[in-house]
């Protein structure tokens, strides 16, 4: 039997972390992600004010530059917007929504796409061809357009944004999962499992899935970054999350009109927060790719 090329297996653990940390930049990325997640998680405690409680806002505090003092006593570290909202608090809250949407939609798309791709590869034949045609159809249509249309049809809400992102991202997982599964299906352990008459579900998810995980984990990391970017873009265009739940993209959008008149901080700081988040995730993703998927072309 010819040797089948083996990809590195994804085994999270101390040794993997040590290997991962050999790239200082990736380590910085990982630390940054941890920090960002913590900041978002404790946003309610860390924010000097609740940015969406109108009682706490003072219109007299509007458009204060970074470092000036609020009438409530704390300092506007990142300045305030036109309604006297502390930008630091708004960014922490926005980060929360951006992360929830990004992680949530990427995770759902991962589950749906992986199950779809594995099943297609496992079933094979005409069914597989038909299933992959659907994937091709989805992939051939530009992501931003599909998302824009879904939101135009369904209206603005956090749930709809997640739905739109899942719909444009699942196909990528399906394609990757199928590709990985096709090589794995030729191995002896699958044959062994089949001759033992293990239930299909068992072979698919207990035997096949763990061995296909490497390229999927790399993809997942990159797709989280893409989901966050897409959400921010949609919100910037005014078709993403509603004003009551502003993400970073929406903050940038509402700060944009003041930017041209010199009040740069309303849009600049949310923008930096967004950029640092995406960059940190991509740094980690790139390192994971080097370790787990050394042959795959970067994309």
């Amino acid at each position: 039997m010819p040797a089948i090329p083996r990809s590195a297996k994804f085994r999270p653990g101390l040794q993997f972390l040590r290997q991962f940390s050999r790239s200082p930049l990736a380590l910085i990325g990982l630390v940054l992600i941890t920090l960002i997640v913590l900041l978002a998680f404790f946003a309610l405690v860390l924010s000097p004010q609740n940015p969406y409680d109108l009682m706490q806002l003072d219109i007299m505090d509007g458009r204060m530059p970074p470092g000036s003092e609020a009438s409530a006593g704390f300092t506007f570290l990142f300045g305030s917007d036109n309604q006297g909202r502390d930008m630091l608090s708004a960014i922490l809250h926005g980060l929360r929504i951006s992360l929830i949407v990004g992680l949530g939609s990427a995770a759902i798309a991962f589950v749906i796409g992986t199950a779809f791709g594995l099943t297609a590869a496992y079933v094979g034949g005409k069914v597989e061809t038909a299933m992959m045609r659907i994937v091709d159809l989805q992939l051939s249509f530009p992501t931003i357009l599909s998302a824009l249309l879904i939101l135009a049809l369904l209206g603005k809400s956090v749930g709809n944004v997640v739905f739109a992102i899942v719909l444009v991202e699942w196909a990528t997982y399906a394609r990757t999962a199928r590709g990985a599964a096709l090589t794995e299906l030729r191995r002896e352990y699958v044959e062994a499992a089949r001759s033992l008459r293990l239930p299909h579900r068992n072979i698919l998810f207990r035997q096949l899935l763990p061995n296909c995980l490497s390229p999927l984990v790399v993809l997942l990391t990159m797709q989280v970054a893409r989901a966050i970017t897409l959400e921010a873009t949609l919100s910037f265009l005014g078709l993403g999350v509603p004003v009551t739940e502003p993400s970073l993209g929406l903050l940038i959008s509402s700060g944009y009109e003041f930017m041209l008149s010199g009040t740069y901080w309303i849009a600049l700081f949310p923008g930096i927060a967004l950029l640092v988040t995406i960059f940190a995730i991509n740094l980690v993703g790139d390192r994971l790719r080097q370790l787990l998927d050394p042959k795959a072309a970067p994309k």
Partner: protein
Amino acid sequence: MTLWIIQRLLQAILVALAMAVIVFVGLHLIGSPIETLLPAEATHEDRLRLIADLGLDRPLYEQFFLFLKGVLQGNLGISYVYKEPAVELILSRLPATLELALAAVLLSLVFGVPLGLMAGWKPESAFSRVIMIGSIFGFSLPIFWIAILLIMIFSVQLGWLPSSGRGATQTLFGIPWSFVTLDGLRHMVLPAIGLSLFNISMVTRLTEAGVREAMSSEYVRFAKAKGLSPRRILSVHVLKNVMIPVVTVVGLDIGQTIAFSVVTETIFAWPGVGKIIIDSIGALDRPVIVAYLMLVVIMFVIINLVVDVIYRLLDPRIRLQGE
């Protein structure tokens, strides 16, 4: 081969039809356009007349065939907002988008390929690492964010370049273009850069991966042993082999770039189809949305078809595999 092309063509038509069904169904999900069209003081008779005029009282399959007929005849109704035929409206805005997207693709090749060649030639050098980290940074930048920054820096702070509109245009073959006038080019610089940063990063990474793979190949080692200069090895021998995947990806990516110009056009007030579709979605201008979608679908099917055919013509291995 002929048989395969016919097969592929039929497939493409099938895909286009499937997309037409999806667009049509989606259209019906939006709801009836009657409320947006009728003036407030309209009577019940006005309402019925409008429904009959738009063909909304007929059975669904009949409406679908009318819609298909409209697609084939290039007649998809009149824009509610602009009061012009939707297809003509979209087509008149298309050149602006095409020249912006092509400029971005061109930039991505002009910058991406040399950067990738340099990074792949000596992957361990500090310079290569900076390029590769830069490329990660490049595809981390959301297109709308880089557009805002470009305007802030080059238009507002430095005042070097204009930030909105197309500038002066010159008519060529009956179509106005910006790239033929100096003023138009100045207007195009910022949007094109904003749109291309993602593509530049992608091309850089693709080229780098290709070069790294090529470096360990026989032909490069032979060329080195022969004493050829690095410049000659890279620009003559490696480049040829690396360009095949790069051109394929960039070719397929033209569609994505056109789609993402929605964002760039909105920020730079570039009068292309992207700007118009965002406005139309906001105003629920159905005919324009449908015309745009069908245009994108047809364009995509054609691009995929052409890339497929060219690929098969160029690479005999794929041809043999398929037959």
